[in-house]
């Protein structure tokens, strides 16, 4: 009966310059441009995929990372199914800021049960030689903050990008199944209803 496509909203958050737009573009268009403009305002792209037999349209939201633009990006947090917390392995400050991003997201997305919300952590720019954040440090942070899956990615050479998004989808679907057991069978589930937006080209 589940031949319908679900629309999942995921949002990329992290400091300016960690590669949020590049990750999104690599995943959706499989292209990389080292000199891509920094994002002004808010953008999103759609991507259809199949995960474990589920047809899914991912709506990936990309925002401007600078603190100043907070009031203009936070309204878009609502309704997110998953949040990709992104830092750059060659920028320690962006790693230190992960906690702030998580906090900002939970606050403005109005997440009901923050401890259960599916976050995925991405350490981008794996291709650069001078690392400032070790894999162990990052894994430790993920463990301590809610056992989040951690992926070291490179938008430049496409390492782990698709895997990370697929994991995000799995986490969301797993969440849904858990909830489904709690919901009586005759309940109409509204929030995962296929929406017309899913047909919008990407």
């Amino acid at each position, binding site marked *: 009966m589940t031949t319908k496509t679900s629309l999942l909203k995921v949002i990329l958050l992290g400091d300016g*310059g960690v590669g949020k737009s590049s990750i999104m573009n690599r995943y959706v268009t499989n292209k990389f441009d080292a000199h891509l403009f920094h994002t002004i305002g808010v*953008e999103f792209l759609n991507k259809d995929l199949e995960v474990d037999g589920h047809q899914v349209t991912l709506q990936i939201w990309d925002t401007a990372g600078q603190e100043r633009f907070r009031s203009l990006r936070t309204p878009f947090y609502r309704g997110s199914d998953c949040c990709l917390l992104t830092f750059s392995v060659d920028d320690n400050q962006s790693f230190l800021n992960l906690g702030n991003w998580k906090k900002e997201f939970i606050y403005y997305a109005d997440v009901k049960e923050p401890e259960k919300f599916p976050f995925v952590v991405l350490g981008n720019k794996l291709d650069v030689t001078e690392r400032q954040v070790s894999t162990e440090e990052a894994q430790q942070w993920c463990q301590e903050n809610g056992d989040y899956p951690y992926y070291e990615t490179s938008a430049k050479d496409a390492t782990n990008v698709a895997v990370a998004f697929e994991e995000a989808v799995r986490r969301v679907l797993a969440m849904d199944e858990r909830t489904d057991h709690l919901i009586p069978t005759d309940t109409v589930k509204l929030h995962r209803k296929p929406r017309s937006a899913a047909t919008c080209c990407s």
Partner: protein
Amino acid sequence: IHPSSDEDGIEQDLLVSGSLRIIDKDGEIIVEYRPLEDTVDPSNMLCAGKDSSSVVEWAQCPGERSHQLLETQQSYETEWDMVNAVSFKRKPCPNGEGESRWAFTFSVSDLRSITVKEEGWTFLIFKLKESSTTLPTLHFHQGGSREFLDSLRRFVCVLCVCRTPDDETCLIVSTPNKALSQSFENLLDDNNFGLVHKFKKDPYVTTLGGFSKVTNYIFDAFRGTEEQHQRPPEEVADLLGEVIPGLEINQQEEPGFEVITRIDLGTRPQVTRREPLSADDWTKHQDPEGRMIQIPHLRQVIFKGGLCHAVRKEAWKFLLGYFPWDSTLEERKALQRNKTDEYFRMKLQWKSVSEEQERRNSRLRDYRSLIEKDVNRTDRTNRFYEGIDNPGLVLLHDILMTYCMYDFDLGYVQGMSDLLSPILYVMENEVDAFWCFVSFMDQMHQNFEEQMQGMKTQLIQLSTLLRLLDLAFWNYLESQDSGYLYFCFRWLLIRFKRELSFQDVLRLWEVMWTGLPCQNFHLLVCCAILDSEKQKIMEENYGFNEILKHINELSMKLDIEEILQKAEGISLQIKSCKDLPDSVSSILGFTSDVSGSEPSNPGSPWAPRATQRQDACSNGHGHLRETSSHNSCKVAFIS
């Protein structure tokens, strides 16, 4: 009423419950307060707090007024059950006194002002014209103060709303003449409580003028920033939803009806663009000592056709205000010498910060880090900035760093590299580019400030214009939660820098810098682009996300000459409109040609300024409500 224990020797937590009514007594409007025990029949009372609709409905039969006054069962009176807090002790009923010591009445014609205060609940302080009489403060523990004020507005004109330093809102009122339409209100947001600020530009003109033209518009803007953070787009949209210029209330023959019609803007004139100003023409506008002459003509030519590229390096310095138009060549050389010194003095400041110092200066560190990242991501396909070791990149970086020293409070905000890049490209000189950038930033500063007030103001203004130009489209956007025009954010933040090809950005900017044909011309540029897209947006029935996506994807597909042509046409179309709402006139800087008789005063303190927040308490419905009473005024009011 909270009786003061000092004065009255009563227990401190004592509270006098009562009801408040507005009574039409033979044409005189009376506000009456009675303690609860004094009311004739408590079952009569409508509880505004629970059912505001019962208060809003207001049936009135003028012919039977005096008769009905006696029959309190009729809905002729509206009452507010204000205070019914169980935790408070009720004052014992002072039997036999005839009239309670707390009861009071006054005629609204004696009313001078109402002060609205908030302390978890709202309380109102009435001031009468005779200052000797003081009335007790009314506390609305269960709400209803707004309904009361709204109803009171049918009988009094709120002339202006002032905000005192103590977070009070003071409504100065006057009773109007009959058969006058009263126009309201520019609203300003109250940051702390979301109260409404209403500004009446020139109340006396309206009161004395005796004609019924009403310009009525409401702004419902972003509220305080913290509050706004918590709002999803659709709620943000709601907050911005009440912009209604372009509405006119025509008083019909039949009393009691006001018909809202759209302003007829007439047809949009076709305009043609001209050739760019040539180097020859530019030199012809210089006197022998190098002063620019016939400046209005020069501006006009630049507005109509832009500049050929060879002239830009010189002309932009004038357009941006770095060079005064009436300066001689000698004076400009001296100016440049001074400005060069000043620039390098500031450049040396950040250049000489040691690593140790920077470690202790997180703001400088953050600015530098972001500038380095963004310089690498600004116009890298442009010849001037392409490649790895392009000197253009170093200049871009150094100028932005020096700007941080020039204005450390603002520092570097994303988007600023976009504004600098074309200027540096044209100037090909670090110092000149810096000072031209400083001038441009003077115009754009508010866009980048902490609260992004410039952005909010522009979005509101754009909404106002769009509503006038195309109510149907505006309504469509509104229906898709897009009425607050978020999708124009990038356009406005960096003046279309990302929307147009590099060469077209140069053209657009020099046209805008002429200041012609009106103030805020860039907003009409927005309207022109939206005008071309509205058909598709509505036909395809785009929702919130699709509209955002569609607008984002217009980038690099726009034709600048076509847009400028349309935008100029719109400006002429609006300018020729006789019944232009004040809101629109003041945004575009059109001064009223009807001197003194209309409440149009773009130079007034209420002209849109970024420091003023505009807001309304409206629920989005019934912006205008008909009221009917042959002896009282017509009031267009906000609920």
